[in-house]
């Protein structure tokens, strides 16, 4: 007998019983059928690739042709533009299963005089759309952000996608070709020239965490395991906020624990009403405590690394995140110079972030890390697990590790900014400022510097 299995990490297989159909599934399917250019951009492990696998299969079932271009598979650090574009061409043919029936090498060689992008576009128009004269074709481009790490700009490729989309009006054959783009990125990362980007004409499909009514398929694996599966699922979702990876992981943990108990002959005891307590014990012991060594497959460590990897900006990211933890609205960063000259308390200066306000790069970084999400225009921590793992203590420990003047600033902050003896003077201030050069620090750092300078200036005026 096949047992019900959850899947933690990696894209879910087509027949995976634990696949959760979300609003995004319906939105994307509808938009694709309507021939829209679709963009699914989100943080890691939110189920983008699983969604892609499902879409492809659904479309194929109704007679459409699909191909997937995984950008990580084509590019590598050393690849040249020539190799990259030819790689795309070849992978497209492979994915449409045309390599066996089409002499690609010769075809490509015969067009060597043409610019490479032109050749790729001819391949679409004169080969793909001709080989499949009646079917609609869908091309899914996944892991689009990895195009960013290449040593050459890839704007041309994205411009080609936009071109295909625009061609539909003039050349009806292009109405049979539809693109969908997936990745951890923002449109502005991907293209520099706004008139050429496909991302502002594409339809963004929003991918949210599992809602309880959507997550019902997950019950199946719990129903032979616990006596009150619905209550357990609800509590799991309360911990994970529906984040797919964590939700699958918690379901799997419950299932595994029950199986273990069963093999020992002691059934899992969870009296009605005790589920929340029981789950919180499980979450703490298996996810939160010693999370860095328990994080298998990797999830939390990736979030950590995304926050800390760029030392020049880690301070600023942590600072903004710290404010979010304090339930303060995220502030739009001001010019550092302006801050130092006019140290105004944070709360008074910070405007409330509304929906239409463009995100700063740091806010985008936090969003893409997956740690926070936007709720009614405000950034907030995505779920309770993140909140407990990346808590204030964690932030402070890392800020301390970053700052050479950690001890002084911490004492100063603890005194509510009153203990001026803790401010930096002389060489210490010069050293700290030299260290801060080129870095994006938290507002607290800049307030600390400003206060130090003010005291020095005040002392000078006394003499």
């Amino acid at each position, binding site marked *: 007998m096949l047992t019900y299995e959850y899947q933690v*990490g990696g894209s879910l*297989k087509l027949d995976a019983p634990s696949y959760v159909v979300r609003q995004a599934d319906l939105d994307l399917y509808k938009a694709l059928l309507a021939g829209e250019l679709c963009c699914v951009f989100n943080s890691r492990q939110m189920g983008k690739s699983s969604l892609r*696998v499902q879409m492809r299969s659904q479309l194929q079932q109704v007679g459409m042709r699909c191909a997937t271009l995984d950008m990580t598979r*084509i590019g590598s650090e*050393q690849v040249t533009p020539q190799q990259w574009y*030819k790689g795309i061409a*070849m992978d497209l043919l*492979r994915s449409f299963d045309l390599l066996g029936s089409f002499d690609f090498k010769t075809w490509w060689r015969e067009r060597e005089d043409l610019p490479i992008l032109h050749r790729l576009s001819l391949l679409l128009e004169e080969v793909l759309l001709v080989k499949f004269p009646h079917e609609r074709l869908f091309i899914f481009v996944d892991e689009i952000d990895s195009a960013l790490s290449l040593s050459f700009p890839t704007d041309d490729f994205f411009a080609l996608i936009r071109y295909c989309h625009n061609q539909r009006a003039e050349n009806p054959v292009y109405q049979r070709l539809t693109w969908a783009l997936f990745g951890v990125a923002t449109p502005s990362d991907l293209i520099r020239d706004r008139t050429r980007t496909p991302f502002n004409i594409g339809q963004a499909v929003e991918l949210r965490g599992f809602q309880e009514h959507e997550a019902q398929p997950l019950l199946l694996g719990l129903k032979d395991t616990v006596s009150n599966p619905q209550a357990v699922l609800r509590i799991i979702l309360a911990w994970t906020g529906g984040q797919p990876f964590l939700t699958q992981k918690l379901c799997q943990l419950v299932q595994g624990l029950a199986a273990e108990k069963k093999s020992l002959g002691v059934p899992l005891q969870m009296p009605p009403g005790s589920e929340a307590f029981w789950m919180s014990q499980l979450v703490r012991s298996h996810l939160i405590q010693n999370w860095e060594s328990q994080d298998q497959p990797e999830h939390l460590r990736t979030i950590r690394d995304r926050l800390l990897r760029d030392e020049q900006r880690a301070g600023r990211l942590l600072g903004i995140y710290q404010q979010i933890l304090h339930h303060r609205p995220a502030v739009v960063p001001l010019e550092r110079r302006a801050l130092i000259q006019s140290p105004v308390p944070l709360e008074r200066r910070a405007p409330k972030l509304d929906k239409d306000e463009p995100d700063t790069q740091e806010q985008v970084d936090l969003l893409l890390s997956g740690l926070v999400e936007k709720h009614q225009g405000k950034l907030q921590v995505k779920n309770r697990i993140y909140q407990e793992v990346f808590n204030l203590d964690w932030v402070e420990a890392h800020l301390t590790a970053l700052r050479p003047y950690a001890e002084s600033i911490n004492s100063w902050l603890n005194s509510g900014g009153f203990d001026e003896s803790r401010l930096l003077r002389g060489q210490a201030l010069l050293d700290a400022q030299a260290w801060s050069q080129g870095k994006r620090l938290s507002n607290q750092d800049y307030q600390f510097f400003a206060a130090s300078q003010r005291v020095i200036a005040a002392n000078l005026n006394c003499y």
Partner: protein
Amino acid sequence: MQSWTGKFYRQIAAESGYDLDYIKEVGSQLWGALSEALGEKVSKKNARLVLANYSVATGQSIASSLQAARTPDTLEFPSDAVPLQSSLYIERPPGEERAFAEVCRPGSLIRIKAPRQMGKTSLVLRILAHAREKDLRPVMVNFQQAESSSLGDLSRFLRWFCVYVGQRLSLESRLEDYWDEEVGSKVSCTTYFQQYLLQNIDSPVVLALDEVNRIFEFPELAQEFLPLLRAWHEEAAEQEIWQKLRIVIVHSTEVYVPLKLSQSPFNVGLPLQLQEFTLCQVHDLAKRYGLDDDGIEPQDLEPLLDLVGGHPHLVQLALYWLRQRDVSPAQLLQDAATQSGIYRDHFLRHLAILNQNPELWVAYRQVVSSAEAVQLEAIAAYRLESMGLVKVYGNQVTPSCELYRRFFNNQLQ
């Protein structure tokens, strides 16, 4: 007896060019073929001899094994993997069962991580044997045998990989038809697998990749090749032909190469960690060694287990020597942590490696001389862990057993 051996040599000769692991892997197949050819069942004793012989034929020193085979007890000396037919293989549930089920699933991926001498290869041999029973095509690739020069260059490496796997599948190399440096070697390699190798085999292939940790030493290669394995695994969800590929990744150390989450094969598939033997398993093994015939009771082994824990290889060595009746339990215990005890060769091998790597020497000295767990620089910790010398919990490092603490604390001063 002679003719059997002669026959076997001819078989080996016919297979020449294959590496040790491959021969190990087809060992049982050969055995069957041998029985058939001779119209007579080949005994366990013979199989052992035969195994020893091919090891010699391929230049591996396993003289001790021959010697063991000649003892009245016909015990094999615990050296490499436990041979397929050996009664001395201890199952560690539910690892085997889960792996057997997984390997039969389309497009599956299994990861086995454990330090050296914990029984990884023994497990892989059994997975491959099971695969063969289920009419899958087992292929073993050991990266320890890849040349450094080809590991330094992505294109060369992938070409080697394609040819190697093709040979194991008895498919002639048609690299030139499929390889196109203009599309890059990763796309070429994928095309070669999809359009040629997978296309031309009737049954699915189980690709067991041993000593993948060797790849970690070449970060540039690792960052291209490892994501490729992940991509192939994921491809099975979308293209049926890739369901014919099942991958088993075996590595002895933590993955210390930075890999992007979405590209790492180490967070998908079925992970298996080989645990040390439990007390029950040690008692079971002692029985299989026949120690109860010698009047050695389970409780007599307890002081020994305090010293070596459940480390499979160290336990096997002790049981082997006890069964040889060369040494009494008390004597064995008394000398265990010295250069005159049964672990002498084992220690010397480790010492040789530490001698060649002063930074490991210093790091390990720190570990064994401290009563508490210590923190080490990550790479040193991983390398010591992969040698089996330490256990790592988070960033805390301790010696993997009391035996090591005692011996190396003396030696490394």
